[in-house]
């Protein structure tokens, strides 16, 4: 399942932090909300070949590995994120950001796949 991609926002000063922090790097605040980061612009791209054909993820299940197209994307909210993109994505492309679970496969269309935040963050 995919979900809108959200970035932690400090409730005291509005500072945006991704991945999530505990204390706000800007003001030291401890309360966090979330702001949707719907789109961003591809800043750089690379492609990674699989190191092993199958790989065990930290939580146990095995993943068949294909080439992974990866991007540094500057979100419209500001923070720079690392995410997976479909083949054919170009530097400078504006992309839609979705959070996906780790077992997600590529979705058609110009959609950037960002890993889903950890469960603790989901409940924030």
């Amino acid at each position: 399942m995919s979900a809108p991609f959200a970035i932690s926002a400090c409730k005291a000063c509005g500072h945006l932090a991704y991945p999530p922090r505990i204390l706000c790097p800007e003001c030291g605040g401890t309360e966090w909300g979330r702001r949707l980061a719907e789109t961003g612009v591809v800043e750089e791209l690379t492609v990674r070949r699989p190191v092993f054909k199958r790989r065990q993820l930290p939580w146990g299940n095995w993943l068949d590995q294909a080439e992974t197209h990866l991007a540094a994307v500057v979100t419209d909210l500001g923070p720079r994120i690392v995410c997976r993109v479909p083949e054919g994505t170009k530097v400078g492309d504006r992309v839609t950001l979705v959070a996906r679970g780790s077992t997600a496969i590529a979705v058609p269309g110009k959609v950037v796949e960002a890993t889903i935040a950890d469960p603790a963050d989901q409940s924030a």
Partner: protein
Amino acid sequence: MPAPRQPNAASGTTRPAPVIVGAGQARYERHPAVERRTETFIAEAVVDALADAGIHRDEVDGLGVASFSLAPDHAIDIAWKLGMTVRWIMEDTNGGASGINMLQHAIRAIEAGDAETIVLCAGDRMEKREFHLMTDRYNRVARDFLAPLPLNGPNALFAFLTQRYAARHDLTREDFGCIPIAQRAWAGLNPGAVYRAPMSLQEYLESVPIAPPLTRYDCVPIVSGGDAIVLTTPDRAARLGAPAVGVRALRQLHNHDQQEGDGLSSGFAEFRDDLWAAAGARPEDLDAAFIYDDYPVMVIVQLADLGLIPDGDVKRYLHRTILEDRWPVNTSGGQLSAGQAGASGGMHGLVEAVRQLRGRAGDRQVEGCELAIATGYGMVVYTHGACHGAAVLERVAA
């Protein structure tokens, strides 16, 4: 003749400054035999460094250890296995920055009298599978936000940084190649390097893509190995009758940008002026530099941010100073040619610096090597290294 009781610029005190009196390594290996474990490599490095210093194991009363793969053991287990009884002990988890970090702590410990003779060591048994298991669990962010993409290890992140730097400074792959090609030439003079054959520009350009634009020779060969240095008081050093290495100044800055910067504006730039002022030296006074080289782009960033590229003309510096003139940067071949043995990478440059400054660098000895810089860089928290440190080192005559 006693070592000069010079003012201690590293701490701003007038206490006699501790000195480094030995450096050693376990031979770097690509495919070690099964019985050669992390502790084996660390132990061999320690034994080699003590022999280099001419100091007996029983004189050691302080131990610092850095490793990614020592678990479930810790520094105390290394002390026990090496038969050391120590008054001071530390374990460092800062990877590529661990050597400089432990050095900073060790200097203070000896100055304060907490220990008299300290061994700092690092090592890892690290093969491809172990390396990728390590990088997927490098920290919580890697585990939760990077590994599931999937992104194995830092290559892709430094592919981004390389492109970003190239765009900003109008650099091509030929420019970045100056670093690994020059370091390979040095490696040919280092029997301990895993890549020793000279590398042509053509060979560099045509090497296997790893994470474009990065190719095989932009990435460190993963090896198993160990590194160690020995520090002691100037009084004890004087009795050893060999040149030692003093620490003129040491500065670190960690998490300077909260991982919110571009990864190219480093902590080195922030402490550069303070470092050189404390050292009472300028970048142009250096005889050699030992720059943490996980990727060519980071060597360039550090050289620039530490003020070693005086006119800011990166392209010219790479081609003329590094490639043509062979100005000594990473004379062991660096990690790019000698290999990266996990956390040992954080001490690799320090060991080579000590060898050069003590005149014990064999065929690759830099003539008249009196003043050098060694750096540490490491711990990618999300997009780039968060730990930055550098030490200005000088030869202290026997």
